[in-house]
């Protein structure tokens, strides 16, 4: 039995490290500002955050071991069964769900809620074992674009699609779309509020634009004969391409202005304090102060365009262009 225990110990260490990525949520300015500003009303947002986070955390811990390695280890059939049975209990989520289920026994509504969460967990656990249909996962099927930077933009879109922030924004957007199709008419201001929330949900990513490029990617940027502003432009174009479809059921023009402000403020931490990010986690932005400035600038721009005039797009464009030029030059020095 020593072999399965050794393997489980190693897995527990790997999982403990992996779970530190959940700290990303505490550095996500959308989460923090929801906590500070929305408080009670933020429960809906927290439910979405929790739901989005549940899926990547529900994967089978044994998947951390490469199948070829697992097949090579001299394990008996009994030891394999022990590993199979004990593996899921390495995941802290299993314990949380089990304790929650016991605690909620006798409370009808809570039992139902835990059953739903538990069901989602089991579904995600089982799905993590299924091979993806086709050779390329859906989120990587990004069509080609025109222009000399097209492959960089394409790559950057794929990076955004591998963060949880995007799916959080997608759920917000789809909720509004469903409401517009099947529910009673929404008050006019609700579109503005949901636009602020949706753009805000992906605002932290704009603070760490190079976080998913890895050391190899940064090394390639240093070798490519392109200016710093072109690299930032490829990042920004991807951000807008990914975000704007989500804002179509909301207020797309106001969202465009808000997104430009998010990018204008986000260039500074992206270039000067780059932070490595983890895929399938929430983006961890820079300092809280930067996040607050980003959200306030974005909310003001969205509300000005939405409530007053489309001409408020002009200062947003100017701010974004100035930031692109300034931080493009700084990026060349930083690389």
């Amino acid at each position, binding site marked *: 039995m020593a072999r399965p225990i050794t393997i489980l110990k190693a897995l527990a260490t790997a999982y403990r490290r992996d779970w530190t990525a959940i700290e990303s949520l505490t550095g996500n300015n959308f989460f923090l500002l929801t906590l500070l500003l929305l408080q009670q009303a933020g429960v809906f947002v927290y439910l979405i955050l929790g739901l989005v986070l549940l899926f990547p955390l529900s994967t089978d811990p044994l998947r951390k071991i490469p199948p070829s390695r697992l097949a090579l280890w001299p394990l008996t059939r009994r030891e394999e069964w022990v590993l199979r049975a004990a593996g899921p209990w390495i995941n802290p989520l299993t314990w949380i769900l089990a304790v929650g289920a016991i605690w909620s026994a006798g409370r009808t509504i809570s039992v139902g809620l835990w059953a739903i969460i538990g069901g989602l967990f089991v579904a995600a656990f089982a799905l993590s074992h299924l091979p993806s249909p086709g050779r390329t996962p859906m989120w990587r099927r990004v069509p080609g674009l025109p222009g000399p930077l097209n492959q960089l933009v394409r790559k950057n879109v794929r990076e955004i699609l591998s963060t949880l922030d995007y799916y959080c924004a997608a759920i917000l957007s789809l909720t509004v779309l469903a409401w517009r199709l099947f529910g009673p008419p929404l008050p006019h201001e609700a579109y503005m509020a949901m636009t602020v929330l949706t753009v805000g949900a992906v605002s932290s990513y704009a603070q760490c634009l190079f976080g998913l490029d890895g050391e190899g990617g940064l090394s*390639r940027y240093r070798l490519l*004969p392109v200016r710093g502003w072109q690299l930032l432009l490829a990042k920004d174009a991807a951000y807008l391409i990914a975000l704007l479809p989500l804002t179509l059921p909301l207020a797309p023009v106001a969202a465009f202005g808000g997104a430009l402000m998010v990018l204008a403020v986000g260039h500074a931490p992206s270039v000067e304090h780059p932070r490595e990010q983890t895929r399938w986690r929430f983006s961890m932005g820079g300092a809280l102060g930067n996040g607050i400035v980003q959200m306030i600038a974005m909310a003001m721009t969205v509300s000005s365009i939405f409530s007053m005039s489309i001409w408020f797009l002009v200062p947003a464009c100017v701010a974004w262009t100035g930031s692109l030029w300034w931080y493009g030059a700084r990026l060349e020095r930083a690389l």
Partner: protein
Amino acid sequence: MLGHNGSMISCRNLTRRFGEFTAVDQLNLEVDRGAICAFLGPNGAGKSTTVKMMTGLLAPSSGEVRVGGLDPTSAGLELKRRIGVLPEDLGLFDDLTVEEHLLLTGDIYGVPRAETRSRTSQLLHALSLEHGRRTFAAACSHGMRKKTAFAMALLPNPQVLFLDEPFEAVDPVTAKIMRDLLQSVARHGVTVFLTSHILSMVERIATRIVMIRKGKVVWNSTVNELPQSLEDHYFDLVETPVVEELEWLGPSRF
């Protein structure tokens, strides 16, 4: 537009320090147009640091370097347009496929789209990458990643090629193809500067041998001027292999 004595790569007293540690110490070097220069030395000798200074990725602490007559520090963008590099970490993006990396290179270096597609097909075919052209770099084997980065270095038809350990982790057939390709580009006037630990391959391809140890050049000559086999000369000058008995293997059984 060339360096001292008309050479494509020229280093004068090139030095790089990291705090108290001197990685490259007063390095002098000239490499002619169309030459294949092998830059040899043990791990940590200063090879990659030298290549990084030559390609503008690292500023020298003192001394000067010219590539195609350009100073990598001040004319970085112009230099990048003229050189092809296979970096130590390969410099690939996890979210691009093998083929997309080559298309990206063509677009960025201003190669016309039709020409890029033609060169991409040729390189994928030559390097046996056709079957994996739509594989994402993150899912590629190390050999495939190495070949992709090698193809990216060749595609813009550069004046100078810098290759950091190009033959490591590739199969013998591909290594032979890479060797033939490099000899072909050198015949067309491209200067090749490579580092490698595979001395048998280096001996076949290089026209100039430079050996470095603890940041200092200990040998610099054409391959014909070597007094003995490259391997023997390397062991004599750079490092002598010491084989230790592993006692825990127990007594010899044969």
